[in-house]
């Protein structure tokens, strides 16, 4: 009788080895295929565009879930501000915004995933800092969202400004830049605070809701997302002060300037489209006629844009981006207005924001 257990174990062993073999053998052809691609496209790092075209899909690394920036809808389609940017690049490069493979990454794994080539773009609310840019050998191609650390308080506290927070207890995520920012802000204003250290954002929300801390601090976009999750959101407010700079933007690997140019000009094209009043609704009409503003003509491929062939893009790249994804404002409104996030710093420079677009000529 108990011999059976040995037989079962032996068969399980064989099954295990078989499973291992199946997984590896299935892996092998893919590996070879990949290698031939990289060999043909030496020097290392270059040829990202060819690789994407050959594959027919763009690999994009996104957040595992952040309200407004990346989240799957009920049908399983990823949506969000960062996801829109992946789609825009796919539209420009492949002509089809749906041809994106999404790979999710956490804050800890995002850079290694990019470095290991699991994606061509890291579009995951990543703060542009010196060491990430230089030390990790990555290229930040621009800023698509200016974030900053803010404070949320219950209205019953009667505080109107972060400068009134002397002596408050603050829920703060340990081991993040927000912790340092908080200390610097309070020290700089000669105020004292009582830190309530927490591990995760979810924990912070519960502590804040239960009144364990007076103030909750994290990036402003995160505060708005948290606020949206409250049942009684009218009882809380986000204070006007922003105490740190968090310029978020898409990232690519060092070593392929052509690809970096493509990605950065897709971002600028979306912003330029907003500046020139080109939307997903009117882009086809504008592309069909001769506009007085020659910059619109150049952007939409009506007039020749010097150097576009060097990027390896077709003249209608921007038309694809704007018609399939929309301009910067459309993406912002679609994804971030539901969180009641205002344009603020993220308005174009002509509207008092920070986005200043180099001319398209």
């Amino acid at each position, binding site marked *: 009788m108990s011999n059976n257990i040995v037989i079962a174990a032996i068969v399980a062993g064989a099954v295990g080895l*078989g499973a291992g073999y199946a997984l590896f053998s*299935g892996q092998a052809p893919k590996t070879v295929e*990949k290698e031939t691609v990289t060999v043909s496209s030496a020097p290392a790092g270059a040829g990202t565009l060819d690789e994407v075209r050959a594959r027919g899909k763009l690999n994009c690394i996104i957040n595992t879930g952040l309200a407004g920036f990346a989240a*799957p809808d009920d049908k*399983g389609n990823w949506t969000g501000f960062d996801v829109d940017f992946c789609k825009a690049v796919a539209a420009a490069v492949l002509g089809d915004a749906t041809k994106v493979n*999404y790979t999710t990454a956490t804050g800890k794994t995002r850079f290694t995933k990019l470095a290991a080539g699991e994606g061509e773009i890291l579009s995951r609310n990543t703060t542009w800092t010196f060491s990430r840019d230089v030390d990790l050998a990555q290229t930040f191609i621009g800023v698509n969202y200016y974030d900053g650390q803010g404070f949320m308080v219950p209205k019953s506290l009667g505080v109107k400004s972060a400068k009134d927070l002397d002596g408050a207890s603050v829920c703060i995520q340990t081991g993040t830049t927000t912790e340092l920012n908080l200390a610097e802000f309070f020290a700089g204003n000669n105020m004292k605070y009582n830190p309530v250290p927490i591990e995760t954002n979810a924990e912070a929300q519960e502590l804040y809701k239960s009144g364990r801390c007076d103030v909750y601090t994290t990036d402003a976009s995160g505060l708005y997302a948290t606020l949206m*999750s409250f049942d009684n959101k009218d009882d809380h407010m986000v204070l006007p002060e922003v105490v740190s700079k968090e310029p978020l933007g898409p990232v690519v690997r060092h070593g392929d300037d052509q690809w970096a140019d493509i990605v950065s000009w897709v971002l600028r094209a979306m912003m330029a489209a907003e500046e020139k009043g080109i939307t997903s609704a009117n882009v086809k009409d504008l592309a069909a006629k001769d506009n007085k503003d020659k910059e619109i003509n150049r952007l939409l491929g009506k007039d020749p844009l010097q150097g576009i062939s060097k990027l390896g893009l077709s003249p209608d790249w921007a038309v694809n981006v704007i018609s399939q994804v929309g301009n910067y404002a459309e993406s912002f409104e679609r994804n971030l207005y539901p969180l009641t996030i205002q344009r603020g710093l993220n308005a174009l420079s002509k509207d008092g924001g920070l986005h200043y677009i180099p001319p398209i000529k």
Partner: protein
Amino acid sequence: MKEKTYQPGSYPDLPPPPGTVGIYGWIRNNLFSSISNSLLTIISVILLYYLIDGIIGWFLFDAVYDAESKIECRKIDSGACWAVITKRVGQFVYGFYPEAERWRIDISFLTMFIAFAPLLYPDIPKRKWLLWFSLIYPFFAYILIMGGYFGIQRIEYSLFGGFMLTVILGVSGIVCSLPIGILLALGRQSKLTVIRTISICFIEFMRGVPLITLLFVASSMLNYFMPPGTNFSILVRVIIMFTFFSAAYIAEVIRGGIQAIPKGQYEAADALGMSYWQKTRFITLPQALKISIPGIMNTFIGLYKDTTLVVVIGLLDPLGIGRAALADTKWNGLSTETYLFVALFFFVSCFAMSRYSLWLENKLNTDQK
């Protein structure tokens, strides 16, 4: 009416006095045996009523099962908003696996039970034939799930997620780690120095490192060791790490079992002139494995639950899918419902495993204790 007479000693037992047996008697003895007991009973019943009333109300009667968003849920009723689950149940089960191809997962899952039946239940009819199916099942499931052969569409691993991912990781880890664990346990007891040293090093290293570290190694470090351009699926890397990790624990559990066997058993086997492998196959392992069943199952259940750790390297297991659902502005803030649902899934599968191990223990019980 004339009273019956009985011979001395044959008078039938009288029924116990009313109020001391049956439900009434039980209640009287256990709940209302004294004034203080009666008070406690009444207070407890009142408290229980409020508690259960609130919980059941929240869970069932006041709950909303169909709505388009959390705001809509709250408008309809005050209880749980299960709509976040019902709207996304496909995502919770299959991750982002394309809807048109989900039958492949269903078939793989159902046939998994056929493949496991002969391994788990020795008395099953036609066991010999079914064992052949068990042998080809891994290839069959791999081809069906990943695709890319026989004209079946290839599915990228990045689309894997949800309960399906948990089952793939958990089952592969469990199935592969048991044989490796047995070999390691035998290796650690071996008289051959090289084998013993390797086994000890492996076991001690794997046990000495947190699983989460191994997962980070799988997700980040391995990329640096491989030749550039190798795309070694993260799923395989993670399964290997899970397997190694739990194999080390299994090895120690089984070693405990081996050492619990009385010395006389070995001596008897030696006296019969058995070779090492005969001894292992007929004397050591049958007894050692039987003793180790609770420990092995403990490790398996632990491994199964540890699969949720993959969320830190960006794989969307049920917890990850739940978090992603909460990041949707429509469902933001429904963490209680989401996490309860995931907890229920894990409870059901872990409870089933633990019941099976109990059944197996009873079945193999030879009453030697």
